[in-house]
């Protein structure tokens, strides 16, 4: 049964964001604000960087505000001004990326002003943006979201969140189904998925944690990963990405959302996150950590797999 989701609060959130953005730009708290704005197509949105307080009216929040804007704060986005404090609109899930980046020396808390958005969920895709938000169209990550209220933001619009209908978690379900398969069935599944990959690197480019100056997959001496968009190179690419994100990915699911070939990339990341929890009792994005699970160790780590 498809149920609608109450997002009536988004209008007031929009107003609140505009007022706050105007205030912090006017009083010099920040030099720029990164937020969402309308586009030509109904329901679609795009990120915007404003520096003029009068442009605050361009900002808004809706169920089409899918992007994790935190990617613009990373070093890989060189054209975003890095001088002065920057205000940024973040959903609870995006905020976890900020937390992760703080722990990886990529951001300084004092350099950012977080406008947190209480969130009832966003759409799963913008391919057909003029879609109503309901239990069917909602993004898979929102189905199992536990971060609707952004914790630790500098400003949160004073808006009560409407109650959410019960929704089943789809990732854990899909992961369990895959885990129940035989290795060769799983291989066939991923082979089909990865074969679709055209190496557009949208997954990498929207990822807040893919901030490397030179991706290991772009390297040709040695060629660690085949660059050609063939099933073989695609496999290596997605495996390398999954292992590099293990313990760091906060589950914003942007990689999966932007994949033009609909590869369920977040399944890999969720699976690794589950393993990190199980193996090392580690979850990304909740606190600024000095060391992530894969750059620390415990003498008593499980080694039942080692002879």
């Amino acid at each position, binding site marked *: 049964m498809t149920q609608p989701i109450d997002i009536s609060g988004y209008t007031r959130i929009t107003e609140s964001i505009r007022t706050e953005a105007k205030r912090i730009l006017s009083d010099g708290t920040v030099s720029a604000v990164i937020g969402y704005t309308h586009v030509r197509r109904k329901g679609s949105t795009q990120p915007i960087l404003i520096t003029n307080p009068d442009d605050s009216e361009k900002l808004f929040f809706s169920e089409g505000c899918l992007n994790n804007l935190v990617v613009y704060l990373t*070093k890989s986005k060189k054209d975003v001004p890095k001088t002065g404090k920057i205000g940024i609109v973040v959903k609870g899930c995006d905020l976890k990326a900020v937390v992760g980046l703080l722990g*990886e*020396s*990529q951001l300084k808390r004092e350099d950012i002003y977080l406008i947190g958005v209480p969130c009832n969920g966003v759409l799963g895709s913008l391919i057909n943006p003029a879609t109503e938000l309901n239990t069917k169209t909602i993004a898979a990550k929102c189905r199992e979201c536990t971060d609707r209220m952004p914790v630790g933001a500098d400003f949160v619009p004073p808006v009560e969140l409407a109650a959410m209908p019960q929704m089943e978690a789809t990732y854990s379900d899909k992961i369990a189904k895959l885990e129940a398969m035989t290795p060769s069935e799983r291989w066939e599944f991923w082979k089909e998925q990865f074969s679709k990959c055209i190496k557009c690197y949208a997954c990498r480019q929207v990822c807040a944690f893919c*901030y*490397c*100056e*030179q*991706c*290991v997959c772009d*390297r040709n*001496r*040695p*060629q*660690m990963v085949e660059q050609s968009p063939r099933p073989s190179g695609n496999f290596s690419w997605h495996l390398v990405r999954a292992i*590099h994100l293990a313990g760091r990915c906060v589950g914003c699911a942007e990689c999966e959302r932007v994949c033009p070939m609909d590869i369920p990339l977040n399944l890999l990341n969720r699976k690794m996150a589950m393993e990190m929890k199980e193996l090392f009792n580690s979850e990304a994005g909740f606190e600024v950590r*000095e*060391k*992530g699970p*894969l*750059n*620390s160790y415990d003498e008593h780590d499980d080694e039942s797999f080692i002879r």
Partner: protein
Amino acid sequence: MSRIGVFICHCGENISRTVDVELVASTASQFPGVAFATDYKYMCSDPGQSLIKKAVSEHRLTHVVVAACSPRMHERTFRKAVEQVGLNPFLCEMANIREHCSWVHEDREEATQKAIEIVGMLVERVKKNRVLPTITVPVTKRALVIGGGIAGIQAALDIADAGHQVVLVEREPSIGGHMAQLSETFPTLDCSQCIMTPKMVDLANHPNIIMHTYSEIEQVDGYIGNFQVTIRKKARSVDENKCTGCGICMTKCPQKKIPNIFDRNLGTRTAIYVPFPQAVPNVPVIDRENCTMFKTGKCGVCQKVCGPGAIDFNQQDTLIVEPVGAIVVATGFELYDITEKPKGSPIKGYGEFGHGKIPDVIDGLTFERLASASGPTGGKILRPSDGKEPKQVVFIQCVGSRSREKGISYCSKICCMYTAKHTMLYHHKVHDGQAYVFFMDARVPGKSYDEFWRRAIEEEEAVYIRGMVSRLYQKGDKIVVMGSDISVGVQVEIEADLVVLATAVQPRKGADALAQKLGISYDKYHFYSEAHAKLKPVECATAGIYLAGACQGPKDIPDTVSQASAAAAKVMTLFSKDKLEREPIVARVKENNCVGCFACRKVCAYGAVEEKEIRDRQGNLIKMVAYVNPGVCAGCGTCQATCPSKSVELDGYTDEQIVAMIEAL
């Protein structure tokens, strides 16, 4: 284009028996990039090495692969050989076709095929090898010794005697440490102070030793050969240069009732004091917490009586920076204070023995002060509560130690011997007294140790009861000690006049904080960790830092002195050269690519990764990147496997080299 030489060794018949070496050589000669390949009976022999050298010159070889035994055996030999004819040693690799092939496989065909593949792998690898210049690090030939107990004193004297400057830092106002507190020492029962004080004086007078007492380590920067140590010299309130040590200040000080910590609070001292009469330096210090002048602003008696005018109430802490090349850590131990559960400590309290509540339950070190001729009782065994001579004394061993449930699972090692010593000293001083010892086992290995322990029982009449004490309580002026003798299975109850607890040996408080400043590791008890339990027992994993004495684990005096001399010898070895040469297998950061996530620093066990600023020509900060200090890097490569963008690369084991090997298979 590379011109690789491949040299296949027969190793007598060790290789050629199972591997067709001629076939390996002829196949290798067809590998892309190989300019010359041959086989020879003993490649490591003089003629074998000459053959390689000649081939390098004649065929203008750029790289060399020697297929022979394990590189662990002869890599050095062959690298040296090629170096003699002008090739960088790191352009020579060994293919292990003996230990990993001819000796472990019988089938000639299989073994030959495997040998060919191993050679092929190394040929591909060596193509990617780069010239690696030897890394040299200058060495400052000055040593820092932290701690002025017997370990620090011994290490400092040894290094200084070898002609190097030593900076010794002691936290207390005097050097001497615990050994200065002891009465007599096992197993010879010679007077501790008699053997200790001359060493203290030697140290103070040594032209090569700079002594900073009443000082602590503030900060340690740098790395092996090049440390910068900041020392905080605490305000003594007495000018060391002016003070003559006459002692009149102490005689005149009106504050006389301050418990004397050196005497385990048995005696008293003044507010301006030296910890003990033989203190080195013999310069008093004002205990500002108890000094009337500091408390009320009125007094200043000491200042008035001081002839040379050495008293300075306005003295401030000063910071001194000492450049040193090596550091010996000798911070020693302290006894587990069982009075109450220490706050925040993982170790649980030991309330049941009444220590701290019953005045006549004392610890081993307090007993030492009672037995010491220079102690508060002048060497008479008198119990603290009423000054009476105890006629029945119960000694309890393993208090705290070896008790997993209390949090200290290790053996404190020295207690068996000192308890035996205590029973003897007691017997010597109180002829009609009886000593009882509750013990779990007697652990007395060591030269003349077992004999010593036996003497305590057989000649000095100490009664040893195998078992633990279950309860202890005050009854009148007696202390009732209840326990079980498990060797005979009976309950024992002794009415004792004095109880002496052999409490556990623990690292000094703050040992962890110091370790963090030094960048060395420590175990869960905060004992410092040696680099290798067996083969590097005095080295820290952090190069240039060495351990001596009980800070590394419970130790008696002979062991401590041995380790101190060993640490000194290690320092002298380091100082024997002007420059430190090390294998250039170190990690390097590609600063262009590094985004400064510092994952490398998080996994580096050596603290070799530093932050570096990258600035443009105008001096604007562009970014922070990682920098691997080649003097500190040990070359494990964990950083590279961790770096997502491979912006740090381990020379000698680059991704190119490894991938080349994988692709050759």
